[in-house]
C-alpha cells in the first residue's frame, strides 16, 4: 500500500509495464507513528475537515478519519505553519515517538508490474455558485455528502439532525434530485448519476429515524430505483410517510427572518404551490474529478465526452490501452454492488494476462514453531484497548486494568491507545515472550473485524492462535452505554472476567486444511456462463460447462443490440466458437445438474443428460442459469391481438422484416408490464432503455410516424440518459402514467388499436390510435433457480432470484463458500453488467482455485466417542449436512454406532452440541465446560 501517491507515467506493454509513481511527503514516519494523537492535540492550526465535508475542523497534522488505514498521522503541507513559515514545530516537540520529519521530500518510485487497474472513483458534483440552488450562499442548503456526515454518529453533529444556520433540530426537510445530473443547463452532466434517487430515499429514511415527527419530501423527475431490492425500499419509504413529488424545482430562495428555504413547485394536479423547509438537501451527482482525468492522461487511457472511461459492453472493464483496466465510477456512475462486481472483474481480467506468473512474486508468511503450552501453568495476558476515545471516553480504562490484575491466572495487563495498531502487535508479542504468557485476552472493539489480526499476532509469537479470546467492550459496551459511563465500566469488568475465565480453559487446536480440486463447474451456457467459463479457462483451470438447451447463448440469442448499439449476435457467435474450441472447457449440452454434494474445494456434482449421468469433481461452482421473459397473458390484448408484442418479439419481427412492421406507422410502447407490481415488486432494469432505443430507431427509419412511450418512471440510468434525450429530440412522445391509472388497449378496426392513457400534463385521458403496441415485459426467475437452490442448498430472495452473501460487498458470492453467481439468475440486468458479473464470478472462483489447499477454521464439532451412542439426533439439526452415522464392529461381533463429522463441511455452529443429550459432541473452543466457566463468571459479578 502506497499512500499520497499518484501515477505520473506508464510505459511498456501488457505483462510488463514500467510505472512512475510520485509520492508526496507525509512528514510523519509511519514506522514510528503510534497514532497517539498528541501531535494533533498540540497543533495550533485548524483546517476545514474534508472527511466531514468541511462542516467541522481538523488540525494541520491529522488522521483522515478514526478508522483510517493506515492508522498514521500526516501533515497537510498546504496548512502547516512550520512548513509554510518555519515557525511552530509543536508536533515535533511533543511527539513521543519522534515520528515527525519536516525534511520529508517528494519521492519518485518506479514500479514494474504486469497489469494496471484504475479505480480513482468519483467526486460529488459541486453546486457552488449556481444561483438557482443558492448553495454556499444560503446556509440551510447542503449537499447530500454533507447530509451523509450530519447523519453519521461519527460526524460533526454526532448524528443529530440539526441545520447549519442555527443548530435547530430539523422538522421539515426537502431533497432536490438531479443536481448536477440530467442537466446540461446548470452543469456539464447530461447523464443520470444512477445512485441519487435511492440515496435520497435512504437519507430521508435515516432522517426520519433521527427525528420522529420529521416531514420529508423528495422532489424528483423520475424515481430511479432500478437496483436489486430498491423498488421495495422505495415502497417502504412511501409507507413511512416520506412524500415523493414529481416535479423539477426551479429555484430556491431564503426566508430572511428564519433562514428557512422557500420555493415554488407544481403538484400532480398542475397547481403551483409554495412551500418552505428548514433544510434542503441537494442530491448531487457523480462526476470524474480532475485528479482522475490526470490519471487517465498519465496512464494513456481515453475518456468519453462525459469524462468517463469508454468501454465496450462485451469487455466492460477494459480500457483503450491493453493491459490497463478500470472499475467503479471511473467508467460511469454506478452503485456499490456494481462497483464491487467490476472490481472483481478487473482483478480477474488483469491477472488473466499474467496467469503464467501466478505465485511468482507473492510471499507466504512464515510463523515460528508453536510453543507447547498444554501442561504449563495458565498465564493470561489482558490487553485493554482505548480505541482512541471510543472506549476510553466512556469506560474508566484505568480502573478496568486494575481490576483485571486481580483476576485469577492473569500475569500481565496492558493498555493501548489502539490495540489493533501495528506497534501494539509488537508490544503483545514482546509481552508473550517476556512475561511467559500462554493465553491472551484483548478487550476491545469486536471479534468480527479484529479477531483474525490478534490471532495472527499470537501465531507470530509462537502461540497457538486459538488460545485467545476477545471481550467486546466497544460495540457491545462503550458505544451502546455511552450515557452511563459508570455502569459501562462495570459491564466491561464483567466482560473481561468472563473472557479470562474462558481463556484459561482453552486448549491449542490443530490447524485444518483441505485440498482443492482445481477445476470449476459453470451451470448455464448463456452469455454469463460462457464468459465465466472462458475467463476460468484463460486462467488455466479446467471447466465443465453445463447447458440445458442444445445451443449456447441463453436469453442473449433473443437480443438485438446493447444500449451502446453494439450488435449482440456476432459477439455471441464469437463466444460460442471460443468456448467450443477451448481445450480446457468440457461442454455438456442438453444437460442439467441432478444432484450435488461436497463443499468448497471439493464439490461432486452429477451431470444428467437424458438417461446418462456422470459425476464431475470441482473446487468451485458458478451458477449462471439466467432468467426468462414475463408472458403478459391477457394484458393489453396480448395473445388476442396480432398487433400487440413483447419487446423481444418486436425486435425479432423487425429483424426478419415482418409485413406488419413494414406497414406500421404509429407505435405505442407500454412500460413496466409485469414489473413494479405486487407480484413482482422490482424493476426489470433493461426495459426503459430498450424501448427508448427502439423508439429512436423507428423515428430514424420513418420520421413521419408517431412513437409514444407510456412510462411510470423513465429509468435510462447512467449514461443511458443520452438515449432518452435523443429520443425526445427526435420527437418520440413520452407520457407518464401512474400505477393506479394503467393504460388501456382496445381493438379499433381490423389493423389498428386504440390506447387510452391519462395524461398528467393535460389532465385528461388521451386516446392514441396506433398500428402496433409493444409491451416492455419483466424479467423473471426461471425454473432452474429453485431447482439449483434445492440441490446446492442456496438461498433465494423474495422475488425468486438468488440471494447474494451481502447486498453491497459480496454481490457475486453465495453465503456458502466456493459458490458464485452471475447474470439474470441474480437479478435483472443488461448484457454489459451480466458480463462484468460473469468475469467477477470467475475471478472470485480463481481465488479459491489458485491454491492447492484451503485453511479452515479449527472451531469444529468434535465427537466424544465414549459418550456418543449413535442416536443420530445431531444429524437432523446440522444445517450443513456435515454429520454422518457410522457403525464399527467391536471385538465380539457387536456393532457400535456413532457419528462422524466432516470437518470441511462443519461450520462450528454448535447446533449438534446443543441437541446432544449425552455430551457426545462439542465444538472445539466452545465446550460446555468453557461456556459454563464464562457463564459462572458472568453471574459472579
Amino acid at each position, binding site marked *: 500500500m*502506497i499512500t499520497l501517491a499518484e501515477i505520473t507515467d506508464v510505459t511498456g506493454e501488457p505483462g*510488463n509495464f514500467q510505472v512512475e509513481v510520485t509520492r508526496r511527503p507525509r512528514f510523519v514516519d509511519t514506522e514510528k507513528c503510534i497514532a497517539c494523537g498528541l501531535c494533533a492535540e498540540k497543533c495550533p492550526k485548524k483546517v476545514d475537515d474534508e472527511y466531514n465535508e468541511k462542516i467541522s475542523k481538523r488540525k494541520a497534522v491529522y488522521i483522515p478519519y478514526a478508522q483510517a488505514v493506515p492508522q498514521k498521522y500526516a501533515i497537510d503541507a498546504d496548512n502547516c505553519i512550520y512548513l509554510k513559515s518555519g515557525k511552530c514545530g509543536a508536533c515535533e516537540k511533543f511527539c513521543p515517538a519522534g515520528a515527525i520529519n519536516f525534511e520529508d521530500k517528494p519521492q519518485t518510485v518506479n514500479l514494474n508490474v504486469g497489469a494496471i487497474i484504475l479505480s480513482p472513483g468519483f467526486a460529488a458534483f459541486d453546486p457552488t455558485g449556481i444561483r438557482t440552488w443558492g448553495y454556499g450562499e444560503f446556509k440551510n442548503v447542503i449537499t447530500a455528502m454533507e447530509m451523509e456526515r450530519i447523519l453519521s454518529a461519527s460526524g460533526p453533529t454526532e448524528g443529530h439532525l440539526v441545520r447549519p444556520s442555527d443548530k435547530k433540530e430539523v422538522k421539515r426537510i426537502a431533497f432536490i434530485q438531479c443536481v448536477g445530473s440530467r442537466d446540461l443547463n446548470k452543469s456539464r452532466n447530461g447523464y443520470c448519476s444512477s445512485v441519487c434517487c435511492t440515496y435520497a430515499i435512504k437519507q430521508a429514511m435515516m432522517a426520519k429515524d433521527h427525528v420522529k415527527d420529521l416531514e420529508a419530501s423528495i422532489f424528483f423527475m423520475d424515481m430511479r430505483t432500478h437496483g436489486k431490492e430498491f423498488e421495495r425500499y422505495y415502497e417502504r419509504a412511501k409507507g413511512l410517510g416520506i412524500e415523493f413529488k414529481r416535479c423539477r424545482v426551479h429555484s430556491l430562495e431564503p426566508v430572511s427572518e428564519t433562514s428557512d428555504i422557500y420555493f415554488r413547485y407544481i403538484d400532480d394536479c398542475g397547481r403551483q404551490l409554495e412551500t418552505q423547509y428548514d433544510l434542503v438537501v441537494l442530491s448531487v451527482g457523480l462526476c470524474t474529478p480532475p485528479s482522475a482525468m490526470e490519471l487517465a492522461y498519465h496512464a494513456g487511457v481515453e475518456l468519453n465526452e462525459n469524462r468517463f472511461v469508454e468501454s465496450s459492453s462485451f469487455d466492460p472493464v477494459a480500457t483503450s490501452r491493453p493491459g490497463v483496466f478500470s472499475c467503479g465510477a471511473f467508467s460511469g456512475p454506478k452503485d456499490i454492488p456494481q462497483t464491487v462486481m467490476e472490481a472483481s472483474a478487473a482483478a480477474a481480467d488483469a491477472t488473466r494476462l499474467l496467469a503464467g506468473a501466478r505465485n511468482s512474486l507473492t510471499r507466504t508468511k512464515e510463523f515460528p514453531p508453536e510453543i507447547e503450552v498444554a501442561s504449563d501453568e495458565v498465564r493470561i495476558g489482558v490487553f485493554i484497548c482505548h480505541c482512541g476515545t471510543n472506549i476510553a471516553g466512556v469506560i474508566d480504562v484505568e480502573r478496568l486494568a486494575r481490576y483485571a490484575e486481580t483476576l485469577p491466572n492473569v500475569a500481565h495487563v496492558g493498555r493501548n491507545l489502539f490495540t489493533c495498531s501495528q506497534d501494539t502487535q509488537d508490544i503483545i508479542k514482546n509481552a508473550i515472550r517476556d512475561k511467559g504468557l500462554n493465553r491472551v485476552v484483548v478487550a476491545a472493539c469486536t471479534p468480527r473485524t479484529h479477531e483474525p489480526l490478534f490471532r495472527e499476532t499470537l501465531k507470530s509469537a509462537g502461540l497457538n492462535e486459538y488460545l485467545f479470546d476477545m471481550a467486546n467492550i466497544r460495540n457491545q459496551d462503550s458505544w451502546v452505554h455511552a450515557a452511563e459511563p459508570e455502569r459501562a465500566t462495570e459491564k466491561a469488568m464483567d466482560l473481561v472476567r468472563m473472557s479470562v475465565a474462558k481463556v484459561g480453559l482453552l486448549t491449542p487446536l490443530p490447524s485444518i486444511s483441505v485440498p482443492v480440486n482445481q477445476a470449476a463447474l459453470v451451470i448455464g451456457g448463456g452469455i454469463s456462463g460462457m464468459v465465466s467459463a472462458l475467463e476460468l479457462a484463460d486462467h488455466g483451470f479446467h471447466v465443465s460447462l453445463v447447458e440445458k438447451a442444445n445451443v449456447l447463448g441463453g436469453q442473449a440469442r433473443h437480443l438485438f443490440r446493447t444500449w451502446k448499439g453494439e450488435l449482440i449476435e456476432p459477439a455471441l457467435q464469437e463466444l460460442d466458437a471460443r468456448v467450443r474450441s477451448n481445450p480446457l472447457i468440457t461442454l455438456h449440452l442438453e444437460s442439467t445438474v441432478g444432484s450435488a454434494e461436497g463443499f468448497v474445494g471439493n464439490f461432486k456434482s452429477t451431470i444428467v443428460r437424458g438417461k446418462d449421468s456422470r459425476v464431475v469433481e470441482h473446487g468451485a461452482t458458478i451458477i449462471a442459469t439466467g432468467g426468462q421473459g414475463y408472458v403478459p397473458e391477457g394484458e393489453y390484448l396480448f395473445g388476442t391481438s396480432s398487433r400487440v408484442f413483447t419487446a423481444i418479439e418486436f425486435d425479432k419481427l423487425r429483424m426478419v422484416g415482418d409485413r406488419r412492421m413494414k406497414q406500421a406507422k404509429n407505435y405505442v410502447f407500454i412500460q413496466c408490464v409485469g414489473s413494479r407490481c405486487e407480484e413482482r415488486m422490482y424493476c426489470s432494469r433493461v426495459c426503459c432503455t430498450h424501448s427508448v432505443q427502439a423508439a429512436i430507431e423507428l423515428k430514424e427509419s420513418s420520421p413521419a410516424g408517431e412513437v409514444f412511450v407510456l412510462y411510470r418512471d423513465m429509468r435510462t440510468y447512467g449514461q443511458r440518459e443520452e438515449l432518452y434525450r435523443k429520443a425526445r429530440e427526435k420527437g418520440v412522445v413520452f407520457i407518464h402514467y401512474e400505477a393506479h391509472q394503467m393504460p388501456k388497449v382496445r381493438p379499433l378496426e381490423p389493423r389498428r388499436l386504440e390506447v387510452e392513457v391519462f395524461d398528467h400534463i393535460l389532465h385528461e385521458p388521451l386516446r392514441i390510435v396506433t398500428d402496433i403496441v409493444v409491451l416492455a415485459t419483466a424479467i423473471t426467475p426461471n425454473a432452474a433457480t429453485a431447482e439449483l437452490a434445492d440441490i446446492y442448498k442456496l438461498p433465494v430472495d423474495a422475488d425468486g432470484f438468488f440471494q447474494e452473501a451481502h447486498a453491497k460487498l459480496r454481490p457475486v458470492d453465495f453465503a456458502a463458500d466456493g459458490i458464485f453467481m452471475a447474470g439474470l439468475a441474480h437479478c435483472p440486468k443488461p448484457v454489459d453488467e451480466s458480463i462484468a458479473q460473469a468475469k467477477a464470478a470467475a475471478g472470485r472462483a480463481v481465488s479459491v482455485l489458485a491454491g492447492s489447499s484451503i485453511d479452515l477454521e479449527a472451531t469444529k464439532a468434535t465427537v466424544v466417542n465414549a459418550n456418543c451412542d449413535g442416536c443420530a439426533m445431531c444429524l437432523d439439526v446440522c444445517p450443513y449436512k456435515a454429520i454422518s452415522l457410522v457403525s464399527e464392529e467391536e471385538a465380539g461381533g457387536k456393532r457400535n454406532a456413532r457419528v462422524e463429522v466432516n470437518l470441511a463441511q462443519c461450520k462450528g455452529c454448535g447446533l449438534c452440541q446443543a441437541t446432544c443429550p449425552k455430551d457426545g459432541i462439542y465444538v472445539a473452543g466452545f465446550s460446555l465446560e468453557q461456556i459454563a466457566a464464562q457463564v459462572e463468571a458472568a453471574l459472579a459479578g
Partner: protein
Amino acid sequence: MSEQVKGSVLIAGGGIAGMQAALDAANSGFYVYLLERRAAIGGKMAQLDKTFPTNDCAM
C-alpha cells in the same frame, strides 16, 4: 504482450473498488501495489453513514 510477464498488479485508487480488486488479485496469487492519492484508503464509501437498501453501516 510482453514475453517477460510480471506476476504483479498496480491498482490506482484505494476506495471500495480498488480495495476489492486488490484483495481478489492478491488472493489469486499476484503481488499487488495499491496506490492511494490521499493519506488513507477508504474513498467515498468511508464517508457514508449507511448504505441502501439494507441501511447497513458503510464503515
